[in-house]
Structures are given as C-alpha cells and as structure tokens.
C-alpha cells in the first residue's frame, strides 16, 4: 500500500505495540502469575464417563487429608431455574451453564466437572481428587449428531423440546433447535439447472487451541464482595455470568482481566471463576487460584461443533447459479447452543441466489458443551459449499474464480438469511485474487494441485466504553476495557491519535477491569477495533471540544474564535499545539464515551493454496498459501496481516489434522497436544496476505472486522487443492493422512 495516497497520518502506519516490551521481556502478568497472601490452589474432579447418573459423592476422605481446605460440588451452586440470559451475541439457559460448571444429578460427557477441591498446594489438591468417591450409574451415550436425532437415541436432557424460532416441539428430543431460511422456488431453480452437484460432508470436533489454559483466582471478601482475576475475552461478561450463577448483585463483583494467551472464542464462557469463588467462601475467605492443565482444557472446556452437512447446488451451462439447498446438523455438545445459526447464515453468503433453502439443527450429544471458535460455524459450512462450488466449476469447465465472480454478491444483494448487503468488497477481493501472482503462476509437478475457496463473516459491533485524560506533558491516558488479544491497544490508540491529530506515541493505553471503566462487550465477533474504535473517535472529538474551550479560556476569546486543525489550536495569530495547551490547563481534562454502533460490515476473503500430496503416506505439504481479504481500512496493517495469517494457520490445522478422538465408551483419548495435533511453524509455509481496502461506510475510519474471515476458507481451499493434486474429493475433516490414503484407494483404479 502506498502511504502517500492515504488521507491519514497515523492510520495505516505500523508502530510498535504498547504492550510489546512487557510481553517479550516476560514482565507481562498473566492469570497464572497471580499470587495473593494466604492463597490456596484449586483442582477439578472430572467425569470418567460419557453419560452417567451420579448416585453419590463422598468427599470425607479428601477433606480428611492434611492441607485440604474445602470441597464443593453441584450442591454448592445456587439453584437456578430455566432462566435465559443474553450472552452478548446469543442467549444461554443459566441452569445449563450452572450444571456444566459442576454437574448435579448427571454427567453428560467425559470430562464434565463433578467436584472441586481447594488445598494448600496443587499437589495436595490433586491427591485429594483421588480420594473423592463418586458412585455412577453408567447410561447409554451418543456422540454423533445424526445418531442423536434418530428415534430411540439416548436422551441427554429429558425436558428439552425443539425450538423453531419460538415454535416449541412437544416431545423429548436431542434436537434443541431447527432453523430454516427459505426464499424463492427451489424445485423450479433446480429444474432450470444444467448441472447439479449434491454432496455430504462431515467435520470433526476441534478445539480453539489457545496456548494459555484457563486460569482464575477468586477472593470472596468478608463484606460479600468478590474479586476475580482471570484470563478472559470479556471481564464484564465474566462479571455478569458470575452474578447470575452465584445469584449476586453485579456491583458486588469486580473482575480484573489479566493478559491473555489466546482465546479465539473459547475464553468467553466461565468455567473456573464461580467454582474458585465458592471455594474461597468455603475456605474462610481465602483467595483460591485454579489453573487448568491441557487435559482439563481439552476435556472440560468448549470446542467447536462437529457437523454433518449436505449441500446441493445447481447451475446453468453459462455458470449462473439457479438454486442451492443445504442441511446442517451441528453437535452442540452436552447442552444446546452450537453455532449452527451462523453456519446457516454463512453457507451461501457469498452468492447471489434467488432460489435457496437452508435447514439447520442444533443437536445435543455426549461431548463437551461447544463454545465459540473464531467465525463459529463458518468453517464447517463453507468447507461444504465451497467444495461443491469447486466441483460445479469443474463440471462446467469454468475457472473457479470466474465462476465465483459471476455469482458473487454485491451491494444491494440479499443474503440467504434475509438482510440486504451494504457496501462490501467481495468482488474486489476476487479480482485481487485472480490478478495475484500466485494465481497466475503455473503449478507443475506430480501430485500437486491448487485450490481456492471463499470465506465470509458477519462481524459485530457490540458495546464499548473508553475514558481519556490529558497529562500535563501532552500525553493522553486511554483507559479501555477490551481484552487485547490481537494488538487492539495499538489499533485503538492509533484511532484516537488520528482523531486528536497527535502522535501515536503520545497515547498511553491501558486495559482495566470492571471497576475502572464503562461497560465493554467481549473481544470477539471481530468487533473490538471497530467498536472501541468508534468509542475513541467519539471520545477524541469530545476531548478536542474540551481542549478548544480551554484554549478559548486561555486566550480569553469566544470558543468559536478558536480553530483546531491537526492537533494545533489557533486564533487570530496565536497558536498552541496540543502538547503546549496541555501544559497550561488549570483544570484537568477527562472525558468518556460509550457507544453501541450498528454499522459493522461483513467481511469476505479468498484463499489460494498449492499442495503436494504424498500418495503413499497421505501427507499433505503446503507449497504456497495466499490469503486475500477485504479488510475495510487497515488501521495497523501488520496486525491485520497477522490476523489473516493466524486464521489461515488455524484453518490448516482444522483441515488437515485436528479432531477429538473417542473410544467406544465415549472417553476422549487425545487430551494432550502430542495427540491433539495442531500445526507448528514446521508444518506451515509463509502465508502471504493481500489487504483489499474497501472502507466500511458504517465507521468513521472505514473499519471492518478482520479476525474471523480468514479461518473460514482454508478447509475448502485445501480440499479443492488435494482434489486437483490427486483426483480424490475429500468430504470429511480432518483430511488426515489416513483418510487421504483411504480415499485414494477408493478412487484409484
């Protein structure tokens, strides 16, 4: 990008991140670094069964162990009825959330928390877990979504009835919800098609794979206030969840977010915080720290859904799509709430379709309750639809990017779930991909192939609050409440600097807890640079107005006589820079802003990947990878590029290796990163990025969320590349070496 063409001074530059030095020197404080006087250590006992009734829990032997201070079970959790709570972007039944934290009468998956211990140290706590006697009655289990939908399947939640956007079913079921989007005449659309492709796909349960495990420390004070230090994507949402689950006033809970070692959606829900709080209260108000092991993380926290997806699409000889149909079955885990709604909305989001129907099913199974994972539900859905689009292109004899361009959505087109698109940059993204050197370069060699796939994400706005105050030296303290996961301290500070017309280095951002700033939604949904950016734009303009008034007071002129331009205040030949004026303030300047902007625009991407497949072993080597994306205005291009690279890397792991592996009894077998295979730097090539900047008209600087789109295309792009390398169409994730070898055996004469 050329900086000379930019209308901005700060936006689009690549300054150092404010938290960089602390992080590279090891001084940054994470949740596991919390140490408080008299602190105890907590551990969780987990179910060894996929589905069982709890007949009794006897903790007497554990409590008799020297150094053990308390044991809690589900009976210690306040009793909560079927209360539905807003979880920020969706809704949850709090009784299910409570039962997921500590099981009551039944365990619903291997790893389900049953009891927790607080002890003088971790080792005693672990020994105590072994002394807790739990008597179970093992029940039949079901792991697969479609099996769970069949008559006669084990029922996980006897009271569950299918919800169809408010229409309730009347029989016990594992299908928590059915979603349908439908428009036009499907039969007529398929009748008009010259080519129809219909395929079924499966994707495995996969975990977010954040490197830092969940950790929380709680101190329940004598005045019944509660202080929590934790690793979270949203301190305010932790506060709200804990308040609901422990039936406390929100204002009695203070949450201090520590630095975070990754979240990707998995650190929105609470797992440890309420349990540590109960242990703190039960141990005589001592602080209790709980940190998960990797096995705890994989078995006890929410992965994203495995899924079954059927896609049928039709097109005329000229390439025009005539109809599309999909059925999506997403495994929610033990309680309702898979991302099937997002899957249904995104599966055909890239294409202009007049005749379309999508059915989605949210199905409970005996797996950990699913949680958000970067573009929740999108990767599954678009693996299926983009694989079918690739096959259509082949059958029609058309270039796969040309086919996508011909059918691409543009401003004014209608998405499958109803809304009409505002200004989007999908066409520009496809054109940039088609013109890219990677796509133009020939690919030769045996068992080598190139694949492409598109990606989409809705993005989100959410609520944001910030406070800014002016120091005497001209620097501006920026207090924000959004967890910084991907460099948002920098991207938000840059927008404030741009608004104020002062250098980026003069903004001093700090992320603080719930007691120190107004409400902020979670860092998720690709919202923070957009939403908090809106907030600093507002706060910057307020601050400039205050400073302008102070300049007028200083010069003793009406405020209208003072002009402000690029951080300089002038009137009738007098001139003060922002810094000079800051040094002359008699009364401090502090301003706040809270916003809930709605103008977030969706994002689109297109990935190109070249692979070489070892047909003997099934190993896939990625030779070259390019991620192209409409990113709106790139505030800090390095961090935008990092989002594209990180999303692609996670998508590669999802596509090629990652999956939860269970035995016949429903026990999770791969609870370490040795066996749950995530890609390392040795598995990945340099991921090239192309930032297509189509400014979002719903933001003063054109910001568009960028973090989620790039995990969506990799699975489909790799599947298409593997096909073009080998002739084997892969319809199941992960496309592991064993599955590729098996598929090659099917298709090779």
């Amino acid at each position, binding site marked *: 990008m050329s900086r000379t063409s930019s209308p901005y001074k700060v936006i689009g530059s690549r300054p150092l991140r404010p938290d960089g030095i602390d992080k590279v020197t090891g001084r940054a404080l994470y949740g596991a670094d919390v140490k408080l006087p008299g602190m105890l250590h907590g551990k969780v006992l987990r179910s060894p069964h996929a589905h069982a009734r709890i007949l009794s829990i006897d903790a007497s032997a554990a409590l008799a162990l020297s150094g053990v201070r308390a044991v809690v079970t589900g009976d210690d959790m306040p009793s909560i009825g079927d209360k539905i709570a807003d979880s920020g972007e*969706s*809704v949850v039944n709090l009784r299910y959330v409570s039962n997921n934290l500590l099981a009551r009468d039944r365990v619903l998956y291997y790893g389900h928390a049953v009891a927790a211990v607080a002890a003088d140290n971790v080792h005693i706590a672990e020994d105590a877990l072994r002394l807790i006697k739990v008597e179970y009655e093992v029940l039949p289990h079901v792991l697969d979504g479609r099996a769970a939908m069949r008559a006669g399947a084990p029922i996980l939640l006897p009271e569950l009835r299918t919800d169809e*956007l408010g229409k309730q079913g009347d029989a016990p079921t594992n299908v928590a919800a059915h979603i349908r989007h439908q428009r036009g005449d499907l039969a007529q659309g398929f009748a008009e098609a010259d080519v129809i492709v219909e395929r079924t796909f499966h994707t495995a349960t996969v975990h977010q794979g954040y490197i830092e495990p969940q950790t929380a420390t709680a101190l329940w004070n004598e005045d019944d206030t509660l202080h929590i230090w934790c690793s979270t994507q949203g301190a305010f949402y932790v506060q709200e969840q804990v308040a609901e689950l422990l039936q406390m006033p929100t204002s009695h809970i203070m949450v201090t977010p520590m630095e975070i070692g990754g979240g990707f959606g998995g650190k929105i829900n609470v797992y440890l915080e309420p349990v540590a709080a109960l242990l703190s209260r039960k141990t005589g108000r001592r602080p209790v720290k709980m940190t998960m092991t990797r096995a705890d993380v994989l078995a006890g926290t929410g992965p994203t859904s495995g899924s079954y997806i059927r896609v049928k699409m039709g097109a005329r000889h000229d390439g025009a799509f005539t109809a599309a149909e999909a059925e999506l079955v997403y495994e929610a885990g033990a309680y309702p709430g898979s991302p099937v*709604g997002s899957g249904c909305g995104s599966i055909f989001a890239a294409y202009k379709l007049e005749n379309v129907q999508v059915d989605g099913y949210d199905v409970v199974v005996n797996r950990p309750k699913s949680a958000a994972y970067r573009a929740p539900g999108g990767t599954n859905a678009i693996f299926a639809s983009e694989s079918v689009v690739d096959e259509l292109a082949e059958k029609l004899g058309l270039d796969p990017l040309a086919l996508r361009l011909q059918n691409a959505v543009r401003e004014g087109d209608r998405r499958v779930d109803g809304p009409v698109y*505002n200004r989007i940059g999908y066409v520009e993204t496809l054109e940039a991909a088609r013109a890219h050197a990677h796509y133009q370069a020939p690919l030769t060699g045996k068992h080598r192939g190139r694949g492409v796939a598109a990606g989409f994400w809705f993005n989100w706005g959410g609520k944001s609050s910030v406070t800014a105050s002016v120091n005497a030296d001209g620097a501006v303290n920026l207090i924000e409440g959004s967890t910084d996961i991907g460099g948002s301290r920098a991207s938000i500070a840059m927008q404030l600097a741009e608004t104020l017309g002062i250098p980026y280095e003069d903004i001093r951002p700090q992320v603080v807890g719930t007691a120190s700033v107004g409400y902020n939604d979670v860092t998720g949904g690709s919202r923070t640079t957009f939403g908090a950016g809106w907030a600093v734009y507002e706060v910057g303009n307020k601050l400039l107005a205050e400073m302008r008034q102070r300049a007028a007071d200083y010069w003793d002129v009406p405020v209208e006589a003072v002009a402000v331009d690029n951080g300089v205040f002038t009137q009738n030949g007098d001139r003060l820079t922002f810094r000079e004026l800051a040094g002359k303030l008699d009364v401090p300047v502090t301003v706040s802003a809270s916003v809930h902007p*709605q103008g977030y625009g969706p994002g689109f991407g297109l990935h190109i990947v070249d692979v070489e497949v070892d047909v003997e072993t099934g190993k896939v080597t990625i030779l070259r990878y390019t991620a192209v994306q409409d990113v709106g205005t790139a505030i800090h291009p390095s961090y935008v590029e990092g989002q594209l690279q990180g999303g692609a890397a996670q998508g590669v792991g999802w596509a090629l290796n990652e999956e939860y592996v269970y035995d016949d009894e429903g026990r999770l077998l791969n609870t370490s990163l040795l066996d749950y295979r995530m890609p390392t730097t040795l598995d990945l090539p340099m991921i090239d990025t192309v930032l297509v900047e189509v400014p979002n008209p719903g933001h003063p600087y054109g910001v568009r969320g960028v973090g989620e789109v790039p995990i969506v295309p990799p699975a489909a792009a790799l599947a298409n590349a593997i096909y073009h390398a080998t002739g084997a169409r892969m319809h199941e994730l992960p496309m592991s070496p064993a599955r590729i070898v098996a598929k090659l055996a099917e298709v090779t004469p």
Partner: protein
Amino acid sequence: MIHEVWIPPVHRDLTGGLERVQVEAATVSALVAALDARFPGIAARLTRDGKLRPGIAIAIDGVLSPRGLRQRLHAPCEIHFVPAMAGG
C-alpha cells in the same frame, strides 16, 4: 407508515405460506401486534413476557436492533426476525 416484513419460513404455516407481508406500524411492538391480528398465534411465537423471545433478533434494513420490541420504525423499512448468532 408501511413496512415489509419477511415471515420466517418456520412460521409461514400461520400466514398461508406468505413469504412477506406489508404491515403498518410505528414500533416493532405494534408491528408484532398487527401481524398477530392478521395471523393469530405469531406473536406468541416471536415474543414472551413483553419481549422478543430469547434467541430471536430483529433486523431492520439489514441491521440488527438492540432495542427489540421498543425499536421505533421511523421510515418504511424491511424487517426480518432471525436467530441470534455468536462470534468468537
């Protein structure tokens, strides 16, 4: 003023299969009431205890409204009832 309401496919059993209808209303609350007068039973599906049901969001001209039934409809618009969705 008159708005275009897209009926969710799972509720078209109440509208005789109609995909979209024209409704005059000044708020979403009034709009739901008008829908219910014409298609009895639809309000019970979309609302509970004076609010949109949990899990249902309303999109007005493509933008999700955080105000639910309280949302005023200042100009003729297109309205969708959609499932709430989550990001990560």
